[in-house]
C-alpha cells in the first residue's frame, strides 16, 4: 500500500519520529510511505512526495492546530485524492466532546471552536483514527499508531555519558499542574540526595508572550524561580533525531503526559521513545495504565505514589529496575513494534 502522511512538520515536536519509523517499517514490508512536501534539509532522512494522487491513502496527522492546513495547501490534495481515500489521525483528541480535565486541560475552549474542528474533520476524511484503545466518539477507529522501534535503542556501550540523575524531555504544554503538584514537591524533599536534573523542551523558561492572546496562559504556566530554587537545568528542545540520545544522558527519565491525553488513554511517541533510550524510564501513569501499555513489568516503572522514595530507589538500585526495563522492551517488541503498527494502519485504511 502507498500511504502519504500530511502533517505540520515540526522538527522538535509532534509525530515526526513516528513518521520516520513508518517509513522504515514500510521499506521492510513492501509498503511505500512518504510525507507530503519536498525534500527538506531539516528532515534529512525522511522521504517526501507532492504527488498525492500517486498514493492509495492520504493520512492527515492532526495535532492541536489547524492553521497549517491553509486554503492554499489543501485544494491541491483534496482535488487529487477523494475523501474515501483520506483518513485523519487525531493525535490530540480534538474529535471529541469538549473535555476539561480538572477544570484545567481542555481540548476546546468553547463549543464554537469544537464545531469548527468537527466539521473540518468530517469534510477532510472518511476515517478518523485515534491512538487510544477506547475512543469516546462513535465511528472513530481505535488505532495505537505510535510504536516501538528496537533498532533505535541506544545500548550502554554507545550511550552518551550520564550527565544527570533525572531528565525530562517534553514541552511545557499542560504539564505544569502535575509537575508542580506531584513531581516538584517530591524532588524538593530529596533534592540534596540527587545529582543534576534537566528539563529539555520549550516553555519551561517562561510563558510565551503570545499565550495570553490565545487564552492559553494556563497551558504554559511555569514558576521559573521555583525551578531555579530546585536547581533544575532547563534546555531548549532538541530535534526529533536527538530525543533518544538526549534522554540517554540521564540515569532516570521521566515521562509526563498532559492530563487530557492521559484521561483519553492516548498514546504518543514519547511512550516508546523513552524505552529506546539508555536510561531507566519512569512513567507518570497509574500502574494499571502502565501495565496496559507496557505489560506487567510496566507496573514497576510507574511513578505514581511515593515519587521521592521511588526515585531514590531507582538511582540506588538501578540493576533491579533495568531488569524491568528489559522485560518491558521485550513486551514492546512483541506488541508495539512499528511493523505491527504498520500492518494495523494498512488494515484500518483498507477496511
Amino acid at each position, binding site marked *: 500500500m502507498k500511504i502519504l502522511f500530511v502533517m505540520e512538520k515540526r522538527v522538535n515536536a509532534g509525530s515526526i519520529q513516528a513518521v520516520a519509523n513508518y517509513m522504515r517499517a514500510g521499506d521492510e514490508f513492501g509498503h511505500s510511505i512518504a510525507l507530503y512536501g519536498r525534500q527538506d534539509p531539516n528532515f534529512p532522512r525522511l522521504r517526501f512526495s507532492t504527488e498525492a494522487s500517486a498514493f492509495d491513502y492520504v493520512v492527515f496527522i492532526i495535532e492541536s492546530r489547524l492553521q497549517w*492546513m*491553509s*486554503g*492554499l*495547501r*489543501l485544494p*491541491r490534495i483534496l482535488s487529487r485524492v477523494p475523501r474515501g481515500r483520506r483518513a485523519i489521525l487525531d493525535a490530540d483528541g480534538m474529535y471529541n466532546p469538549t473535555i476539561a480535565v480538572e477544570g484545567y486541560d481542555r481540548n476546546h475552549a468553547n463549543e464554537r471552536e469544537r464545531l469548527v474542528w468537527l466539521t*473540518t474533520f468530517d*469534510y477532510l476524511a472518511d476515517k478518523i483514527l485515534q491512538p487510544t484503545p477506547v475512543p469516546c466518539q462513535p465511528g472513530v477507529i481505535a488505532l495505537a499508531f505510535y510504536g516501538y522501534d528496537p533498532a533505535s535503542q541506544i545500548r550502554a556501550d554507545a550511550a552518551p555519558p550520564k550527565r544527570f540523575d533525572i531528565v525530562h524531555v517534553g514541552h511545557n504544554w499542560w504539564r505544569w499542574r502535575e509537575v508542580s503538584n506531584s513531581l516538584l514537591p517530591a524532588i524538593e524533599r530529596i533534592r540534596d540526595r540527587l545529582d543534576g536534573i534537566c528539563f529539555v523542551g520549550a516553555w519551561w523558561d517562561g510563558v510565551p508572550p503570545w499565550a495570553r492572546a490565545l487564552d492559553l496562559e494556563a497551558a504554559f504556566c511555569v514558576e521559573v524561580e521555583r525551578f531555579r530554587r530546585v536547581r533544575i537545568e532547563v534546555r531548549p528542545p532538541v530535534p526529533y533525531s536527538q530525543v533518544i540520545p538526549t534522554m540517554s544522558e540521564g540515569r532516570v527519565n521521566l515521562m509526563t503526559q498532559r492530563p487530557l491525553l492521559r484521561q483519553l488513554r492516548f498514546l504518543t511517541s514519547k511512550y516508546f521513545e523513552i524505552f529506546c533510550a539508555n536510561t531507566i524510564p519512569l512513567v507518570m501513569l497509574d500502574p494499571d495504565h502502565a501495565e496496559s501499555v507496557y505489560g506487567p513489568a510496566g507496573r514497576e516503572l510507574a511513578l505514581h505514589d511515593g515519587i521521592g522514595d521511588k526515585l531514590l530507589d531507582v538511582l540506588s538500585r538501578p540493576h533491579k529496575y533495568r531488569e524491568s526495563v528489559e522485560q518491558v522492551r521485550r513486551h514492546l517488541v512483541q506488541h508495539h513494534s512499528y511493523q505491527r503498527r504498520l500492518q494495523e494502519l494498512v488494515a484500518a485504511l483498507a477496511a
Partner: protein
Amino acid sequence: MKLLIVSKLDRYARAVTTISKYVQVGKALGHEVAVFGEQLSNVPSVPYSLDVSKFDFAIFVVYETSDFPDLPYLARLLDGMPKERRVIIDCCGRYNETIRIEHDFNHLEKMDGHQGWEWIEGLQAVSDRILQPTLSPLRTDVRPFLFHAYDPGVAAHRDSTPHQATQTRPGNGDGGKPYGLIYVGNNWQRWTQMRRLLEAIEPLKNDLGPICLAGWDWDKRPDWAIQLGVRGADVDPALLDRLGVERRNAIPFDEVIEFVGQARFTPIFHRPLFNHLGLVTNRTFEMFCSDAIPLLMLPQDMVEAIYGADARPLTPGDDVAACLEDMLRRPDTYWEAVLKTRGHLSVHHSYEKRFKELLAILER
C-alpha cells in the same frame, strides 16, 4: 454577471478599497459583486455571501495564504464553484519562481510556512486562470490585469486649471497646510526607499513642513521581525526622531484620501519586488485622488506606462531635493501635471474600465 470575491478584507490593508469600488461600480453597471463569507461589520459597505451557487464566478484576490478561507468554508467554495469558473488575481507575484529583491521576497516560508512550489502548485490547483496586476507578467501562463484603478469621482477637488488647483489649496503655494508630506502605508518592504527620500529632503525640512507616516510598524522594528530575522520591516527611529517625523496608526481605507489631503506632497512607493515585477497597487491610483501632489518614486518606465507622459514632472528622479524645491516654488507647474495625469487615469484606468476588462476576461 454575479461575481463572488474571495479575499480577507482588512480596513487598513491590501485590496479593501479596490474591492469596495468593484462592489459600487459593478452595481452601477448592472452586475452584482459580493465577498465570500459571513457578513462582517468591519466593512459594512461590502456585502458578503455564502451562497456560492448564486454566483457566476469566484474571483480569488490573493495576497497571503489567509486570503483563502479555512475549512469548512473552503470546502463549500470549492464544491460549489467548478474550477473553470474560478479566477485568481495574484496581487504579490506569488505565482512565480522565488524572487528576492533586496530584503523583499515573493515567497517567505518563515513567515507563512509555505515554500515557493506550494504557491505555484497551490494556485494551479484552485484555478487555470491566474491574473497579475502588472503589464508584463514573467510567466506565459499569467494574464496581465491591473485590477486596481482610479476613481475620478473621488478626487478631492475637481479643478480645471493648475492655477485654480493651487489657489484652492492653501498650503500648496503658501505653506498653510498642516503637513508638508504624508505617507500612508504600512512599514513592509518600504524602508530602504523611505530612508532615501527622508535623507534627501532633510535640508528642506523647514520649508516643507511636518512629515507624517501613517501605518503599522513605523515606530520600531516589530518583535516578530526580529525573532524571525526578517528585514522587511526595518526602520530607523533615530532618523525619524531627528526629522521630527510624526508616526500615526494605520488609517482606515475610507479615510485615506482625506487624510493625505492635509499634506502638500505624498510619495508613491512600491515594494522592491513590485518594482521588479511591475505590479501596481491600490495606492498607485488612489493617491491621485487626494489633495496633495504625488511624488512618483517609481521606475520611469512604469510611470510612463501607467500614468502617461504628462506625469514625468512628478518623478523626482535622482535629485529629490531639487525637484521638491522646484515644486514648492512653482506649484502651478506640478498641479498641471497632476490634473493632466488625472485625466489620463480617468480615460485609461477608471474602475469602470477595469471592471469591464475583468468581465471580458471572464467571458472569454
